[in-house]
Every structure is written in structure tokens, then in C-alpha cells.
């Protein structure tokens, strides 16, 4: 059970770490000042959540590693984030579409985790759920605004949706880790979140005048670590550089 729990906590923490990193790449380059502020704020929330999830992961593991060790010293195959969140930023529309597709899942997941039988997990979820709610409101509004904006913004948002939709299915595929956590009441069966997720997506896409791609295909391999995309390695190269170049230093 300890291994499964560690694995699950890495999944939660790696999602927020990798997405937080991606969002922070926007710093100073957003389309308007308010978006610079909002993107930095989102990244900040996600990094804060990472500290909690990976902090607990490190504690559960009991191998004398810290949250920073987990973030900065694991290689690609030990990361457990969804493939979706490691995808490059693309244009602002692609970034916000990725954010919305993640937020809609994240909120449902966190809501379910507030009932976890593991009180440490329930406590982290209770803190994170308010942030996720706010992220979702913002990203949904932006997807709607740009989808139902100009012809160009519509075209770009449809392209972003077409590109990213195949990365959604991975969120709902259960494996042995999920089975054992679900049996212990620690975490939900991911498949049970799907109906509510799709309902939310359909509502927002209808308002955004965007069409969900007619494919059930799902890229997989991120949350199990079996096969990440090429993008993750480059992200880690940057994120981990100082810790790797100057091992053992205190910052």
C-alpha cells in the first residue's frame, strides 16, 4: 500500500509541478498585463500544491528524500504526470485550452479527495480545491471568450482542442495503483469522474462554439511513467539544471 500511495502522490504532485512550470514560462510574455498576473498566480498556486503533494510523497516514502529531491532529482521515467500537462505552451489559446482540460478534471479529483480516508490527503485537497475552482472559472471563461470571439480566435481554439483532446482520456484509465487506493477509500476510481467531466466540457464547448473531436483515442503513458512525450526531458533539463550542476548546494 505504501508504494501505491507514493505513486499516487507523485501523480498528483507531478501534475501540478509540470503544469506550474509550463504556465510559469509565460512570465512577462502574456497578451495583456492582467493575464501576466493571472498566469503567474496560477503557476504559484500549482507550485504551492506541488510542495504539499510531493512533501507528503516524500514522507510516505520514508527514504530520506525531500519534496525538492523528488522535483529536482528524478529523471523522466520516474515522473507520473499526465501527458497533457507536459505538452508545450503553444500560443495563448493552446495554453488556456490545456489549462481548462486539466482544471475541469483537477477540480473533480480534488473534490473527491476531500473525502479521502487518509486525512493528510483530505487536508491537502481541501486547501487546493478552492484554488482549482478559481482556475477552472478563469480557464473556462477564457476558452468561451476566445472560442466565441473573432474568426481567428475561434479557429485557434478549435485547433488547440483538436490537438489536446487525445490527451484527455488518460485521466480516466485506472490501473492497479488506483484499484488499491480506491478499495481503501483513499482516492476515487478515476473512471467515476468521467461523466461529470464530460458534462462540464460539453457545456463549456457549446458556449465556446467549439466542436469536440470525434475520437475516443487516448494517448497514455504519463501517469504510469511507461512512456512520456519527448517534451518532458527538455522541461526537466531546465527545471533541474542548478541542482544537477551544483549537487549538494543549499539555495
Amino acid at each position, binding site marked *: 500500500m505504501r508504494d501505491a500511495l507514493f505513486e499516487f502522490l507523485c501523480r498528483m504532485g507531478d501534475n501540478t*509541478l509540470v503544469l506550474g512550470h509550463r504556465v510559469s514560462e509565460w*512570465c*512577462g510574455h502574456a497578451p495583456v498585463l492582467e493575464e501576466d498576473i493571472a498566469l503567474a498566480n496560477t503557476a*504559484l498556486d500549482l507550485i504551492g500544491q*506541488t*510542495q504539499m503533494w510531493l512533501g507528503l510523497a516524500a514522507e510516505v516514502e520514508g527514504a530520506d528524500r525531500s519534496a525538492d529531491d523528488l522535483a529536482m532529482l528524478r529523471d523522466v521515467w520516474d515522473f507520473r504526470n499526465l501527458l497533457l500537462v507536459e505538452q508545450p505552451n503553444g500560443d495563448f489559446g493552446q495554453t488556456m485550452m490545456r489549462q481548462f482540460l486539466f482544471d475541469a478534471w483537477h477540480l473533480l479529483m480534488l473534490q473527491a479527495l476531500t473525502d479521502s480516508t487518509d486525512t493528510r490527503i483530505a487536508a491537502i485537497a481541501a486547501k487546493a480545491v478552492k484554488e482549482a475552482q478559481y482556475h477552472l472559472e478563469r480557464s473556462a471563461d477564457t476558452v468561451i471568450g476566445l472560442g466565441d470571439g473573432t474568426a*481567428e*480566435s475561434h479557429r485557434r481554439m478549435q485547433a488547440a482542442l483538436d490537438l489536446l483532446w487525445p490527451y484527455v482520456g488518460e485521466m480516466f484509465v485506472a490501473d492497479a495503483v488506483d484499484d488499491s487506493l480506491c478499495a481503501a477509500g483513499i482516492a476515487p476510481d478515476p473512471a467515476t469522474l468521467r461523466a461529470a467531466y464530460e458534462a462540464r466540457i460539453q457545456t463549456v464547448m457549446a458556449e465556446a462554439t467549439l466542436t469536440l473531436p470525434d475520437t475516443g483515442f487516448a494517448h497514455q503513458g504519463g501517469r504510469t511513467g511507461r512512456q512520456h512525450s519527448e517534451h518532458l526531458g527538455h522541461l526537466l533539463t531546465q527545471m533541474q539544471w542548478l541542482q544537477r550542476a551544483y549537487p549538494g548546494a543549499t*539555495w
Partner: protein
Amino acid sequence: MYAQMVKSEASKDDPDKLAAFQARIDAGDKIEPKDWMPAGYRKTLIRQIGQHAHSEIVGQLPEGNWITRAPTLERKAILLAKVQDEAGHGLYLYCAAETLGVSRDELTEMLLDGRMKYSSIFNYPTLTWADMGAVGWLVDGAAIMNQVPLQRTSFGPYSRAMIRICKEESFHQRQGYDIMMKMCQGTDAQKRMAQDAMNRFWYPALMMFGPSDKDSVHSAQSMTWKIKMNTNDELRQKFVDQTVPQAEYLGLTIPDPDLVWNDDKGGYDFSEPDWSEFFDVIQGNGPCNTERLAARNKAWDDGAWVRDGLMAHAEKRAARKVAAE
């Protein structure tokens, strides 16, 4: 200091109104946007506040350069929060400028096509993690030195923006110093980074206060108007006097062999920065001017479809609301 090169304006206004205006300023009144003000006062303030706002915006870039490489989760969070604050400062300041009758978009256009300036300091590169320490400690430190007196400036909206901003800036400076502290207590490589950052940022930080008073012919009017509260040299001296003991505490050497305590004046004697370098940077020839402006232009140009899209949506929604009523 962000308003390094602002020139004040000679006045062609009605002498009676001018005298009454000056009397209000001398009495310590705050001038509010709807009050009468000399054209030169308005124009100087627009330039000064605009320049300050632009500095906050461009200032995101040298620090944003290290957000994705921050060494720990905590450092990453602190730096993100700091850069978010700077963007917020830009927003307050643009709002203050807008009360004078210039829009944020107009000011932005003037930044992007080079008609308006931003602080010279942000045209220097951030090359190691120690630069995040040096920027917080020295650059935010110099900014505070300038901005604390501006909390008492005569223009109400500017003064109020400064009060909000100063609260956050002192936090930035402490964080920067804390980074330096860790580096200076760290490995040889970290100490080397810290000293290197000190060497590169010392004189550019001194330049943040603008040229020497004897070369700064336009400050007198601004000081009478309480748009500028202290001379450039006064602030620079204060900054040096405050910073030298901090550097000593860190064990860093200030790259000035002539730096020496002067008992008579109760402050340090120090070398002037290379002012020809300063004017080069102001004129666009600093190490990063091209990149900084290109980055801001790219952000603005790439963002056009987003701004247009959101605007079109807001209009559609408003139209639908009207139709439904």
C-alpha cells in the same frame, strides 16, 4: 529608480492659477485628477509614472529568465510571487497615469516603439541564480530608496500607488538579501556567483538614481512641484551608505577601490558609475535593450488576436443581453 531621465516642462500657464497651484503644493495638499494643474505638471507626471510602469513590466523579464530554473520549489514560488507583484505594480501605475488622461494602450505603444523609456537597469542580463539575489537586494533596494519619499509626492493617485508598492518592495529586497546570504554561506561556486553578481550589478544599481545633479538640469521644477522629492545624488549617497554594511556582512567586496568612509560628511566616498555607459544604455545600446524590447513587442503582437477575440466576445455578449431585454 525608474524615472531616471524625466525632464520637467517649463510653463505657459496663467500665472495666478500657477501661484495658487504652487501654494497648494507648498501647503502639502494632494492634487487630484479633477483639479486644475499646469500642463507641464501633467506632462511630466505622465512621463514619470509611465516610465515607472514600463519599468515594472520590462522588469518581469530579467527575473522571469530564472523562474523556470529556480533551484527549489520554495525559491520558485517566491520568485513567481515577486514577478507577479511587479506586474501588479505596473497595473497600479498605469491606472494612476490614466487619471491624467492617457490610456494604458497609448502608453504601451510608446514603450514598444521606443518613444518612452524604462529603467536602464533592466537592460542588464541575469546570468546566474545569484543575480536573483542581487536584483532583489540592490535593484529593489534602489527602487525603494527612490519610492519611499515618493509616497509623499503631490499627485494623489501616484502617492497612493507608491504606498501600496512600497509595502511589497521591502519584501522583495529581503528575499533578495536572503538569496545572497545563502549563496555567501554556500559552496565556493556559490560564493563566486554572488561576488560576480555584485561586480556586475553595483554600478548599474548606482545608475538607477539618474545622472549627477550637476548634469540634471530639469530636476528643480520637479522638486518644486513635489514630483521629485530628493536629488539624484542625495538618494545615491543614501543607497551607498545603506548597502556597504550589508555587503560587508555578506562578505562581498564592492567593486570600487576608492570606496572609503568619510567622517566629515558622515557617509561613504565612492566612485561614480561610468556615465557614458549609462547614456549608451538609455540610447538603446545596453547589453539587453534589443531583446527586452523585442520580447515586449512579440508579447504584444502575438497577443493581438487574444485581445481582439475577448473584445469581440464581450461585444457579442452585450449585444445578446440587449436583444434579450
